[in-house]
């Protein structure tokens, strides 16, 4: 029940927004409100459906009927309302699809999507509207083409100006604006108003372009859409009051001149704003990549340091200890050569064995830190060799349902496979050394293959 109520409320709000935009549009209309050079409801309705979903389309119907001219035949009114609703719905759906759901106009492609979508929707509305007027005999047959063009350009301009304004500004957090940005925005706004309204500037409409460019450069799509909406609204308002550079001999000519300016100013600003936004996004992506590269480099350095420490430790605990023992054994042999020559032979054999062990360990170390037997014969034999060479006596008992191959045994152990495979285990009983009085203990080594 609440969901339905929320929907009805949302439709009502959408209709109210459309109606309010239409009221503003009528203030900008020429010929005592009968012809609109810039029709804001198209942009507002389009943005509402893009932002809050196309299912709010009944709000467009209600808003359009609320501002309809019921002095015309009912069929004409309904025909225009159907066209206006389809216009907004088609434009919103097409824009959302072409812009791939990116509604902030942050890419040139998105601005292109807006132009195409607004153009397509507006063509439908102009066709419905002009035909309805003609069929209701509101306009003579000779004006059909001019009415279609004026309708199209007015709605198209309304879509280009007011849809971006809403898409970029609705939902913006006011507290995210810095005082400096607020000051700069105020200066841009004041400059636009002064340039648009100063009588001496009215013959040179292009003087506003540097300010439009400034707004787009500094504010991206948001600055561009805001500045373009302000400039075009003031221009249309001036022309409607027979002032400014776009006042021509006939209303039709004035409309055309104004609408072309509005479209040119809006598209130019939005494209520049999108380019700026793309540049910011590219810079941000570059910074992110640089940060990742830095992190990656730090990880590599750290891993290298750890590997060197491990290597040093392996050398210290392995071959170096054996060589130290060898040195001491040879020194002892020299002593025994004088005192007890019979013992010397035994010591020399022991020294030779110790030297061979040191050579073997260095060979294994050189072959990629892990024992060569692991790659040659697999995990079980590697553990047996390890146990044979340990300083403590070790009884090793391995259990394998099948002999592991090189790849499936050793390498997988080294890679620390995740526990998705069948779990197997190897047991090693560490007997301990009597001279250091260690208790017999059982050590369980687990591996995954």
């Amino acid at each position: 029940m609440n969901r339905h109520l929320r929907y009805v409320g949302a439709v009502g709000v959408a209709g109210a927004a459309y109606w309010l935009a239409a009221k503003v549009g009528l203030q900008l209309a020429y010929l005592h409100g009968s012809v609109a050079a810039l029709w804001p409801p198209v942009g507002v309705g389009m943005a509402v459906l893009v932002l809050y979903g196309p299912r709010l389309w009944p709000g467009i119907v209600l808003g359009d009927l609320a501002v309809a001219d019921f002095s015309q035949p009912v069929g004409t009114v309904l025909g225009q309302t159907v066209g206006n609703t389809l216009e907004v719905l088609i434009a919103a759906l097409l824009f959302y699809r072409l812009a791939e759901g990116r509604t902030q106009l942050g890419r040139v492609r998105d601005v292109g999507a807006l132009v195409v979508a607004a153009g397509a929707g507006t063509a439908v509305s102009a066709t419905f509207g002009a035909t309805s007027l003609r069929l209701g005999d509101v306009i003579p047959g000779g004006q059909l083409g001019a009415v279609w063009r004026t309708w199209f350009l007015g709605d198209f301009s309304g879509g280009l100006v007011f849809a971006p304004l809403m898409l970029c500004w609705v939902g913006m957090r006011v507290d995210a604006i810095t005082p400096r940005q607020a000051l700069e925005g105020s200066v841009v706004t004041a400059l636009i108003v002064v340039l648009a309204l100063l009588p001496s500037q009215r013959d040179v409409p292009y003087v506003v372009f540097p300010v439009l460019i400034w707004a787009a450069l500094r504010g991206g799509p948001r600055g561009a859409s805001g500045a373009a909406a302000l400039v075009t609204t003031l221009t249309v308002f001036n022309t409607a009051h027979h002032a400014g550079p776009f006042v021509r001999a006939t209303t039709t000519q004035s409309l055309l001149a104004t609408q072309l300016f509005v479209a040119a100013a809006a598209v130019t600003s939005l494209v520049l704003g999108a380019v700026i936004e793309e540049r910011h996004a590219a810079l941000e992506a570059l910074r992110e990549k640089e940060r990742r590269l830095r992190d990656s480099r730090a990880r590599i350095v750290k891993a290298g340091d750890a590997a060197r420490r491990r290597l040093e430790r392996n050398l210290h605990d392995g071959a170096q200890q054996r060589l130290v023992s060898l040195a001491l054994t040879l020194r002892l042999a020299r002593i025994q050569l004088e005192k007890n020559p019979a013992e010397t032979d035994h010591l020399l054999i022991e020294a030779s064995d110790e030297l061979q062990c040191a050579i073997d360990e260095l060979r294994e170390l050189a072959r990629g830190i892990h024992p060569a037997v692991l790659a040659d014969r697999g995990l079980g034999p590697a553990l047996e060799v390890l146990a044979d060479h340990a300083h403590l006596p070790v009884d090793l008992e391995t259990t394998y349902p099948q002999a592991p191959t090189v790849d499936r045994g050793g390498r997988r152990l080294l890679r620390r496979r995740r526990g998705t495979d069948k779990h197997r285990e190897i047991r090693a009983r560490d007997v301990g050394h009597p001279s250091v009085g260690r208790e017999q203990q059982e050590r369980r080594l687990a591996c995954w293959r």
Partner: protein
Amino acid sequence: MYLPPIGQDNPPVMSVLIVDDHPSFRASARRLLEAEGFNVVGEVADGHEAIAAALELKPDLVLLDVQLPDLDGFEVAGRLAALGLPSAVVLTSSRNAAEYGPIVAETPMRGFVPKAELSGAILTDLLSL
């Protein structure tokens, strides 16, 4: 900790406690020093055991490895000196003394012997200083 039987014939002049976490070094050092007339009274594998054994055995000499699993040899030497034990401390390591920097000179000990150069004669010289 390993304690040998008491009451041997021809007791050696110097009693030694060997502190090293590598059993192979302890075994080799024991054989060499005993062949050169020292009495090895104990072997331990870490710093805390070393302090306990030194307090109990009061050896003439503690042959102390620098790299131990808990305390390092410098720390153990400092604690032994602070306890006022009469034992002389000789540090030993697979590395040279220069690799450890000034801490070697600052540590209260009789001397430093690289492991590969260990001999009874060197220890005797150091103890006679």
